[in-house]
């Protein structure tokens, strides 16, 4: 017997839209809709896609020690964030393993919003509560419907229903109404927004949004191909508690002075890894030909030595070729390096490729 899957509050709307469901991170999720993953993917890059991402968890952290808690749990300077500024950061273990990747937004002086991944939300919350012992901090997991509205026409579609976004730039977020949290961010490489709000208000919002012909429901399959083209990590595949930020090529997420002197959990272990140089590095991989190279595939050098593995791979509908990311030995990580993947017994040449595969089109201030 499989474990009972958690159900989205809006599951009925997805069924009505003709969704096919599948299990992901313990949730019964819409994987695709009748248009199919290819059209859904391309529609998001050309117009607007809407994703139900309520499996992800919004956690509000407040109190006079809220910033201290975040500074301890993550390589971040919570007090240096401007109000409404969002930051991609990592929840690190003592040995600098990535427990989860998060987006933290400063809502006010002593209030922050954390967006955690579905499969890790319970772990993250327990971990934060452990670190919060003795601190003046309130950790509140919120019961919200969470929607991502992504694509070049996202702001126009929102304006059409009276939500103005002109004064909001990429990686900014705020509580636009009571119990609503909106940020300009996403997981597709496109301009877009994520909105967390109570269920009954989400239903009203969707009633008006879905009347716009530029918007279309997008399932988890296209969410995956979009993020893969955009070079974004999927926790559990590309990054795990056994992977550190240096190997994962995520050092850009860690402010420079913190790398040298930060006191966050895992800072000592991370400094040691940086000093010695990571053994492997996360890179983009572009297979020759049209056959996708999937996660789990081993990567070899020309001598047949295993020097890496693919962690995510599929076909990039916008790229027009197969795309993958994975880890290879640090001395084989230079862009253009020719390697090989063993795809069902066939040796497929793969080139180390720059990330992202499709350019980000964020609206930056």
């Amino acid at each position: 017997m499989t474990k009972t899957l958690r159900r989205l509050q809006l599951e009925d709307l997805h069924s009505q839209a003709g969704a096919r469901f599948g299990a992901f991170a313990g949730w019964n999720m819409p994987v695709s809709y009748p248009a199919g993953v290819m059209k859904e993917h391309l529609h998001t890059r050309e117009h607007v896609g809407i994703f139900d991402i309520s499996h992800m968890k919004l956690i509000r952290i407040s109190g006079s020690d809220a910033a201290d808690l975040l500074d301890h749990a993550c390589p971040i300077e919570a007090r240096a964030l401007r109000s409404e500024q969002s930051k991609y950061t990592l929840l690190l273990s003592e040995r600098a393993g990535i427990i989860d990747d998060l987006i933290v937004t400063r809502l006010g002086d002593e209030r922050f919003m954390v967006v955690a991944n579905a499969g890790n939300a319970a772990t993250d919350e327990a971990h934060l509560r452990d670190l919060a012992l003795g601190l003046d901090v309130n950790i509140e997991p919120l019961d919200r419907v969470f929607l991502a509205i992504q694509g070049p026409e996202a702001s126009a579609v929102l304006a059409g229903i009276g939500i103005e976004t002109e004064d909001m730039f990429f990686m900014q977020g705020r509580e636009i109404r009571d119990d609503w949290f909106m940020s300009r961010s996403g997981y597709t490489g496109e301009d877009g927004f994520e909105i967390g709000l109570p269920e009954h208000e989400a239903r009203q919002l969707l009633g008006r949004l879905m009347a716009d012909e530029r918007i279309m429901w997008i399932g988890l399959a296209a969410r995956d191909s979009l993020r893969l083209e955009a070079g974004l990590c999927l926790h559990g595949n590309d990054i795990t508690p056994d992977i550190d930020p240096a190997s994962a090529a995520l050092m850009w997420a860690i402010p420079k002075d913190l790398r040298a002197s930060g006191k966050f959990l895992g800072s000592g272990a991370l400094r040691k890894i940086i000093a010695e140089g990571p053994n492997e590095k996360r890179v983009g991989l572009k297979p020759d030909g049209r056959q996708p190279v999937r996660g789990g595939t081993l990567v070899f050098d020309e001598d047949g030595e295993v020097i890496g593995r693919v962690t995510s791979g599929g076909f990039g509908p916008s790229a027009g070729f197969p795309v993958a990311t994975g880890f290879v030995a640090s001395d084989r990580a230079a862009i253009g390096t020719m390697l090989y993947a063993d795809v069902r017994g066939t040796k497929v040449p793969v080139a180390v490729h720059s990330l992202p595969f499709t350019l980000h089109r964020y609206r930056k201030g």
Partner: protein
Amino acid sequence: MSKLYFTQDHEWIRVDGEIATVGITEYAQDQLGDMVFVGAPDIGSAMSAGDVAVVVESVKAASDVYSPIDGEIVEVNEQLSSAPDLLNRSPETDGWLWKMKIANTAQLEGLMDAVGYKSHIA
């Protein structure tokens, strides 16, 4: 007059004399989603029933297509290498996968006809 058979794994087999043409059903293509790559078996290779003959890959996943019977591959559908979406558009006609020379006609007896297959996917 050709005869049509189906397998539990959602393949169809059209038999004309000693040659069988094999493909996947409309139901299968719908389940798999948008195709991005269709492999091809080597012409002349000998297949036994249940052998993996080709891999078809959608955006989402890779799936094996099995040889439904014993036989020798005599032709593959060249169009699919440049137009894998043909498998979505016309899985039961132009999107055929391979032709094989039937080694043992008795194996066809164990397959389903169209009526049997229809109730199989119902």
